[in-house]
């Protein structure tokens, strides 16, 4: 990871100082280590990690000579001062670096040949650069049984630990989970969890990136590859709309590891990843991965060559329409644009829609308010969180909110559910449909704030137009207030920028039996909101062509299955919830006969006799940017490594989510929740098998008592749209007046309770 903080050498008010006889400048407040690094001088560090808070001066590696100060100074904790004269190249300083390394290595096992970190290890690198060629240590080294499972994801080798405290500080001061501690003292110090249990949480894997030695290593990556046998590719995450920048490690043809970027994107994830982003990659090789093209008829399912499958798909789409194209939330901008191009060319008149929420009129006012980026959360003195559950849905946002509160900011939250951030400040729990009350309760907090920032949940507010309008009003009336959308769909913003609407019209057309062929692109309608209605509607379509990376759902019944690359295996652009266009880069090639979606769609266009003028994702995106005003000015080059913001608003589109109506049905209002390790990706990844979460129904104690369900193990939920049966948990802290159920868990079926547009429903709860 980057050990040094970024330094803006072109900021005004630079302070001049001298380093190793060179006259240099850096902004006031810059630490010497960072200023030196920005000017190409490496002062070695181990414990210093600016993202973990203030320096702690523990490892003593960064000692430098500062003229006029007694003894050597830790450059990690010394700020540049005007005309300060610093030397990092004197014999005394060299002896200090050498000396600290000799001491660090005294009890280090030096088992580099069998250590996963070997070859990409800061301790190893710095020993070669700054350290002793030879040790004077002849005593027995300290030994521990090794390794320990710190969790199902992280192995702990205590012998290799150099006690830099980075992991402990991450746990205590960034994730604030309080799990990791340093146990014992002195030379017996060791990393442990406070309770002695596994280190569990949403962000645990970051300690692997933070560890400057091989003490904390990834269990799924353990002994998989050596650093000279891998290729690292910068990309972005495709599991939620935050768009965390990450790095994909390729080994033997597949993605074998996901890590934070060595140079983090400080406007997005700041180098932190959630454990789903980091450990979901084994889903690319899950047993249900679609590896070969399939053609299915009444008699049999055949594996065929890709040409034959594309030919078969082209035959289906070449028939008289109308056809329909349905894009899943993870489809790229290129895939969406190619679908639109098919619909305006060879498949003229085809409906193009996205499974995600799309554009909701109720949100127009909020989206028009001044927008913020994730790093603005750090600086907010008031964070108002309306709806949602960022800790589970946009996980890295949790770390930003915690950072803001640590820095003295206030958090006020309002919404239909309790979540891991509710305890950080006043929290107003409102029943579904009554979010306006919560927004009004949070309103007075704006008055005292100078830099308020509103985080609002797209899915919750889409159906609460009164709350959205009130919030937009508060934003408009408060000077300096900004908003950031907590998006529901991975690339919902990208598909909306193309003008692709929600699927209300498409599902209606399917129901009417007028659609000849449905092409799904990374879409699983029968496992999405309105699952019951989708299943019914899909029965009336002439034929289905599924472009899919995994089996199950529609891929198990489609007439033609085009095996697609996952977001870790293809080029493309995702637009994050903060309207930042970012590039996916393939970490590895897709397996077997699978191919990137853009390639399959271009091949399809060729077969349909409408060959596009471009044949690469970059050119596809360039065409999209030229044709869609919301993407104007963007190209792969402009997006670069760190992304670029969309400047124009997306076009307004039609969508069923008009909101404002009361909830359908009778019984208790349904509040859906998402769990970070509860979705299909987490369930497919064997790495996450130890932490994956199932679905449940949660009722407050009073509500359970009233309905005679206090002793029930399973309950049946029935809405006007469908039904499902799930285990019941009675939670005294859960507010009464609503029933909570987990959405997104494969096979659980909570989606059947919902309408396609996710509008509010009531459900009858009975013992099952």
């Amino acid at each position: 990871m980057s050990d040094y903080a970024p330094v803006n050498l072109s900021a005004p008010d630079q302070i001049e100082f001298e380093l190793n006889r060179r006259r240099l400048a850096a902004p006031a407040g810059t630490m010497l280590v960072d200023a030196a690094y920005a000017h190409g001088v490496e002062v070695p560090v181990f414990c210093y990690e600016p993202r973990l808070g203030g320096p702690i001066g523990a490892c003593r590696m960064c000692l430098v000579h500062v003229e006029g100060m007694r003894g050597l100074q830790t450059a990690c904790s010394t700020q540049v001062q005007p005309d300060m004269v610093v030397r990092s190249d004197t014999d005394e300083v060299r002896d200090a670096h050498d000396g600290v390394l000799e001491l660090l290595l005294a009890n280090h096992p030096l088992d580099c040949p069998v250590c996963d970190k070997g070859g990409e290890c800061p301790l190893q690198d710095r020993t070669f650069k700054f350290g002793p060629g030879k040790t004077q240590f002849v005593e027995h080294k300290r030994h521990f049984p090794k390794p320990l499972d710190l969790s199902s994801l992280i192995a702990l080798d205590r012998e290799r630990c150099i006690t830099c405290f980075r992991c402990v500080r991450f746990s205590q001061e960034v994730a604030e989970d309080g799990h990791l501690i340093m146990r014992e003292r002195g030379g017996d110090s060791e990393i442990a969890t406070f309770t002695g249990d596994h280190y569990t949480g949403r962000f645990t894997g970051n300690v692997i990136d933070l560890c400057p030695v091989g003490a904390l290593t990834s269990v799924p990556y353990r002994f998989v590859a050596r650093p000279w046998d891998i290729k690292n590719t910068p990309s972005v995450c495709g599991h939620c709309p935050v768009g965390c920048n990450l790095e994909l490690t390729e080994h033997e043809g597949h993605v074998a590891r996901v890590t934070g970027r060595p140079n983090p994107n400080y406007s997005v994830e700041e180098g932190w990843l959630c454990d789903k982003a980091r450990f979901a990659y084994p889903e690319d090789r899950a047993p249900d991965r679609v590896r070969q093209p399939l053609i299915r008829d009444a008699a049999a399912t055949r594996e065929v060559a890709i040409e034959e499958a594309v030919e078969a798909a082209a035959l289906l789409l070449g028939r008289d329409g109308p056809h329909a194209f349905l894009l899943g939330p993870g489809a790229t901008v290129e895939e969406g644009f190619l679908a639109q191009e098919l619909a305006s060319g060879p498949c003229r008149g085809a409906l193009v829609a996205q499974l995600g929420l799309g554009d909701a009129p109720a949100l127009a006012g909020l989206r028009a308010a001044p927008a913020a980026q994730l790093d603005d959360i750090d600086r907010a003195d008031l964070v108002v969180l309306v709806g949602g559950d960022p800790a589970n849905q946009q996980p890295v946002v949790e770390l930003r909110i915690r950072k803001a509160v640590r820095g003295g900011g206030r958090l006020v939250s309002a919404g239909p559910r309790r979540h891991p951030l509710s305890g950080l400040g006043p929290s107003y729990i409102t029943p579904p449909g009554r979010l306006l009350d919560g927004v009004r309760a949070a309103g007075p907090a704006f008055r005292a704030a100078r830099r308020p920032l509103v985080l609002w949940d797209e899915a919750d507010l889409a159906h609460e137009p009164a709350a959205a309008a009130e919030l937009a009003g508060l934003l408009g009336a408060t000077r300096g207030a900004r908003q950031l959308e907590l998006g529901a769909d991975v690339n919902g913003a990208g598909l909306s920028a193309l003008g692709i609407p929600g699927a209300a019209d498409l599902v209606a057309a399917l129901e009417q039996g007028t659609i000849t062929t449905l092409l799904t692109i990374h879409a699983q309608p029968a496992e999405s909101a309105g699952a019951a209605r989708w299943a019914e509607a899909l029965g009336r379509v002439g034929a289905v062509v599924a472009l899919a990376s995994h089996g199950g759902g529609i891929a198990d019944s489609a007439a033609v299955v085009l095996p697609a690359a996952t977001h870790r295996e293809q080029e493309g652009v995702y637009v994050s919830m903060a309207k930042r266009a970012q590039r996916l880069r393939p970490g590895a090639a897709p397996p077997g006969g699978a191919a990137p979606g853009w390639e399959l769609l271009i091949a399809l266009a060729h077969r349909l006799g409408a060959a596009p003028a471009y044949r690469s994702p970059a050119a596809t995106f360039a065409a999209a940017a030229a044709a869609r005003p919301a993407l104007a000015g963007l190209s792969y080059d402009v997006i670069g490594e760190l992304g670029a913001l969309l400047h124009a608003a997306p076009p307004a589109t039609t969508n069923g989510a008009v909101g404002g109506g009361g909830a359908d049905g009778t019984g208790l209002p349904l509040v859906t929740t998402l769990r970070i390790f509860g979705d299909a990706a987490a369930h497919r990844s064997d790495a996450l098998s130890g932490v994956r979460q199932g679905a449940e129904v949660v009722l407050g104690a009073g509500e359970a008592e009233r309905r005679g369900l206090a002793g029930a193990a399973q309950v049946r939920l029935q809405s006007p749209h469908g039904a499902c049966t799930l285990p019941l948990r009675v939670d005294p802290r859960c507010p009464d007046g609503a029933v909570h159920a987990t959405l997104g868990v494969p096979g659980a079926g909570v989606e059947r309770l919902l309408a396609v547009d996710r509008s509010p429903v009531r459900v009858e709860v009975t013992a099952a």
Partner: protein
Amino acid sequence: MPQRHIVYLHREHPGDMAQLPEYVKAGGYNGLMKALADMEPDDVLYQLHRSGVRGRGGAGFPMGRKASFLPKDSPRPAYVVCNADESEPGTFKDREIMEFNPFQLLEGIVLAGYAIGSNHGYIYIRGEYEHQARVLDRAIAQAYEGGYLGSGLLRSRFDFDITLYRGAGAYICGEETGLLDSLEGKRGQPRLKPPFPAVAGLYASPTLINNVETLTTVPVIVAKGADWYATLGTEKSTGTKVFSVSGHVMKPGNYEIVMGDTSLRELLYDICGGFRPGHDFKACWIGGSSVPVLTAEHVDTRLDYESCETAGTYLGSAGCIVMDDSGCIVRSSLRLAHFYRHESCGKCTPCREGTMWMEKVLQRIVDGEGRMEDLELLESIMGRISGRVLCALADGAVAPIESALRLFRDDFVHAVEHGSPAREPMAPMGA
């Protein structure tokens, strides 16, 4: 009479000073009453400054200057923290003060609080001082009952509370920032400085942290005046100081003497009754264990801060550990290395790894497995610790051993050549 029990020990007082009425009868709380009636907080601060009293915990930093570092305009509350984690080897002066003269300490804390505008004091007492904690507990209760603590104490408009907090047995918690972390409920480890406790101490608030003996001085300075106090001792070492003498002397114990008045020879031979028949002085760690050792050559050193520095050591906590010619300097060094290795908190590299390494090398030498190059190795390790650590602990480990290696080199050479001159082999010490 070289001993003068006029500030701390009051052994001549006939009554039990640990009882509030006796303390008051002996003139106790005169200082606080005087301050509350006639003095502004700044006047008290000025008296501390003028008295020249230096911190008795070991570093000897002038108390008045330390108190003046507290920002006056902080929006946060200020705290007084009394460092009663007396764990420096050979030091047991605070123990006697707390046990036999607790009210003077409480009065000193209140006065310090008055001077810096604080309303809350904490006493962090080492866990092993169970009896002393009970005495203080009772004294605090009596002081509250008598109106010497609490809101509007002594019918003034000044409020002050004292909380007693027991440590859990770590030497590092006597280091002021380690103490503050421990007091906040965290793992006791020194903090990076700056910021100093005066600016961001307990709960990131302005904090005056002083040793028991230092705070116990305050009532006397306020009651009798800084000018009177400054007449005692030398220019840079004012007042009296309690010396805890332990080891090979006939009458070990606590002795309060006026600084600069007495020499080490007088302390050891006259006051402490000299050595056992047939034995004589060999070495002395005058300021606790964390200071360079003194040899017979330094026996005429006068007992004040500046004379000790001239002799190449520090007055430290004045925990004077004495060894006669029956002792082995090599084994003593091992014992000290063991202590510092055991007490190192592990936060910074040179201390955590260096003290462990030093102990291992010394253990080998004592066990008769030493190599001549181990003496240079020890010097090399110590050179890589000294001045490069986060707090004073490891410097304290280096000082006695580095000086022993320099001043008693023949003993080390002999130990390498012949093993330790021990009557029996020394068993390795446990954790």
